[in-house]
């Protein structure tokens, strides 16, 4: 069993390395073996309907794709980049404006080639969306060592100026 705080910090370094996730402010709520919760804060820049203030489905898709892609860190013993093969999202409710949306993902089947992941996005007790996704395992070597070290938290002299701590 890995320490949840260590896992959360690892996932956070990964999420922070994705420019678009920094842009929309995705952050880690909690992580443990094979389960991850991320949060999408409400902001004006992700609104799809200016009349109602409802978040666009695309931002929910990004939240769920990132949560599914990052739970891989909590499911596999070592970090490796796994590209998304496909993603299917069912939208149950519009997200209530002005409030954050969280997504909880877990990996329910892992083979040498494929990871099967499911995820739900919610606000309190209301499920906003549900999704299933598959990810391809392309091997650890396909991810450059320097990047793997960054995600593992092995600080190299060149990049030790990292700033904010997000919401963990």
């Amino acid at each position, binding site marked *: 069993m890995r320490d949840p705080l260590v896992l959360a910090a690892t996932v956070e370094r990964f999420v922070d390395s994705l420019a678009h996730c920094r842009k929309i402010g995705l952050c880690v709520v909690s992580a443990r073996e094979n389960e991850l919760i991320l949060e999408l804060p409400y902001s004006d820049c992700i609104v799809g309907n200016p009349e109602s203030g409802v978040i666009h489905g695309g931002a929910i898709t990004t939240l769920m794709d990132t949560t599914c892609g990052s739970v891989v860190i909590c499911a596999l013993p070592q970090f490796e980049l796994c590209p998304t093969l496909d*993603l299917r999202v069912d939208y149950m409710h519009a997200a209530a404006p002005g409030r954050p949306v969280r997504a909880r993902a877990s990996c329910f089947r892992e083979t040498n080639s494929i990871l099967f992941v499911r995820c739900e996005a919610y606000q309190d007790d209301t499920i906003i969306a549900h999704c299933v996704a598959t990810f391809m395992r392309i091997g650890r070597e396909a991810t450059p060592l320097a990047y793997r070290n960054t995600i593992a938290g092995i600080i190299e002299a060149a990049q030790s100026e990292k700033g904010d701590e997000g919401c963990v």
Partner: protein
Amino acid sequence: MRLIELVEKAHASGDYSELIGVIPYARTIGLECHRFGDDVIFRLPQQDENLGNPILPAIHGGVIGGFMELSASLYLMMFQPVPQMPKIVDFSIDYLRAGLNRDTFVECRLTRQGNRVANVNIHAWQKSRQDPIALARAHFLFNSGRK
């Protein structure tokens, strides 16, 4: 002016900048819309803030999905006999190639329009239309008709 009126106005004039200007998410990802006769092509210009994988670098899969979803709903709004706002029910995307840090294009096709539900196919490419980076389909629900 209401959103739906902006859609009508944009489609009549062929200038979509005002419509896109009032949709914050469209501005965030940088979506553009170009009309050629009855065809519409959506464009997502290269933008560093849309990147996910920093190694390739590649556009975040969620941004590609969001771009395709938003394109499909704009497309539907444009081609309804009576313009109305569609509500997305589900969305399914297959990622075929990495979306590199360059312009991305999307074209939509209305596969089936029922009274209440529409099925839209969405095709995204970068270098060549023959080499799609992603294919998606979505169902949309319209509020009008039977409750």
